[in-house]
Structure formats: C-alpha cells, structure tokens
C-alpha cells in the first residue's frame, strides 16, 4: 500500500503548489480542498482514521467554506486575480522561494542525518483517541473550549459593523464622495 501513500503525497504536494500559484482565490481554495483531501488520505494511511475524518469534515468542510463565504461576500473575483497576476512575477517569488528552499535544504540535511527507520503505522482507533481526549487531556479540551470562546468573542467584536468613525481629515473626503455619488444618481 506504499504506493497509495506516495500517490496521496504527490497529490497533496501538487495541489498545494497549485494553491500558492493560483491567481483566482476560488481556484486556490478548490485546490486547497484537494490538498486537504489528500491529507486525509495520508492520515488514513498513517492509521489515523479519525483525524482523516476531521480533516475532511472540519477543514475541508467548515473552514474552507468560511473562506469561500468571505471570498464571495467581498466579491473577490477577477480584480484580485488581476492584481495577483500582475504581482506574481519571478522577480517577486524567486527570492522567497529560494529562501524557503534553503530552509528546506537545511531541514533535509538535518533529517537525513538522523537516520530514522521505516515503520508500520499503528492504527489508533477513535476510541483510543476519545479515551485520551477525555481522560488525560480533559483539561486540554476545556482549554480548547476557552480558545474557541476567545475566537468567538474576538471575531464577534471585530467583525461587528458599527458606524464607521472616520478620521476628521477623511470625513470631508467622504462627504465629497457622497455628494458626487448623489450627483451621478441624480
């Protein structure tokens, strides 16, 4: 079954590569979903079936939907794609890519020098996981709840729309713009 592993790995890599190179956010998101599915496959092959499940349901399902929702909400389509296209010149991505490559090379060097053996992944059943979660890591789960609460409160506050308090310099401009708008409407 190693072959499945390598295939899934390759798919994940290629899809990820596509994610970071797509100009259109929606395309990128779709590729990311592919990548996440490949991840789920990898998880499954590594014996973590529950994780694979979560990956699909929460990551690919919930979180990605959130992204798409925002993209749609803000109507980020062609404009963004255009902007990214203009931007993503070799001059721009060369440097960071080299940097990342160097980092990876170092990582490679370190990992290869450690001489790990191959192993057969042990299957960890959801049950085992649940036991661990609710016994050993119970406080962790509670803390995760606090974490989510922080996120909810925070997102609620930040995302809340209030009337925009503009700086006094900007206020005039805005008024002008509005006037203009009215003119065009009329």
């Amino acid at each position, binding site marked *: *079954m*190693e072959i499945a*592993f390598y295939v899934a*790995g390759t798919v*994940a*890599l290629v899809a*990820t590569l596509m*994610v*970071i190179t797509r100009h259109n*956010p929606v395309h990128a998101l779709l590729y*990311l979903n592919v*990548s996440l599915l490949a*991840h789920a496959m*990898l998880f499954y*092959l*590594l*014996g*973590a079936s529950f*994780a694979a499940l*979560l990956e699909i349901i*929460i*990551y690919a399902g919930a*979180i990605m939907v*959130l*992204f798409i929702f*925002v993209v749609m909400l803000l109507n*980020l389509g062609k404009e963004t794609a255009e*902007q*990214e296209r203009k931007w993503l010149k070799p001059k*721009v991505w060369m440097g*960071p*890519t080299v940097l990342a*490559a160097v*980092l*990876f090379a170092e*990582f*490679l060097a370190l*990992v*290869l020098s450690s001489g*790990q053996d*191959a192993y*057969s*992944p*042990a299957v*960890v059943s959801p049950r085992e*996981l649940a036991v*661990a*979660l609710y016994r050993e*890591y119970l406080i962790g789960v509670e803390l*995760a709840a606090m*974490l989510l609460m*922080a*996120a*909810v409160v*925070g*997102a*609620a506050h*930040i*995302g809340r729309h209030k009337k*925009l308090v503009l700086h006094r310099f900007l206020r005039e401009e805005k008024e002008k713009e509005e006037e203009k708008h009215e003119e065009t409407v009329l």
Partner: protein
Amino acid sequence: MKTTVSTEVVVLLAGLLFALGIVGVIIRKNIIFMLLSVEIMLNASGLAFVAAGSRWGQPDGQVMFVFILAMAAAEVSIGLALILQIYHQHKSLDIDNLKEMNG
C-alpha cells in the same frame, strides 16, 4: 492493510508542504491567500504530528491534531473578521497597503 512508511519520507513530505506554505505566505499580495498559506503550514504540522503519533502508536499525535484544528478554526474566524474590517476600511485586501506603521 499494512503500510510501511519511512519516517524520513513523512517528515520530508510534511516539511515540503510546510515550505510551500512559507512560500505562499511570503509571495502573496492578498491577505486571504496569506491566511490560506498559513493553513497549509498548520496542516503540514498536523501531518507531522499524526505521523509521529502513528510512529509511536499513541493517540497523542491525533489529540494534538484535534487541538490544531480548533486553533486553526479559531484563527481563521478572527482572521476573516479582520479581513472584513480591512476590506471595509481600505477597500482592498492588498497587504502592501498596510504599511502605515514603520520606522
């Protein structure tokens, strides 16, 4: 369904994904892409954890993955809220517009 996996390969795969994420964060102009790329990195870490858990046959790796998932969700929610605000104020999600503070 016995698979034999070389630890190195898994780690390197995760590392490669991680590196791709890094590249994505740096080269992208749109904040949404940056967030996406960060998600890739987190996912790569998750992969590493799951692999490590399976290497030792423990549930701990997956437990950590669950927490990572929670954290990613939390982060994305706040991040997207922020993005909405930014878009609201700047009418653009270009990260290069956000350079007001420097020096």
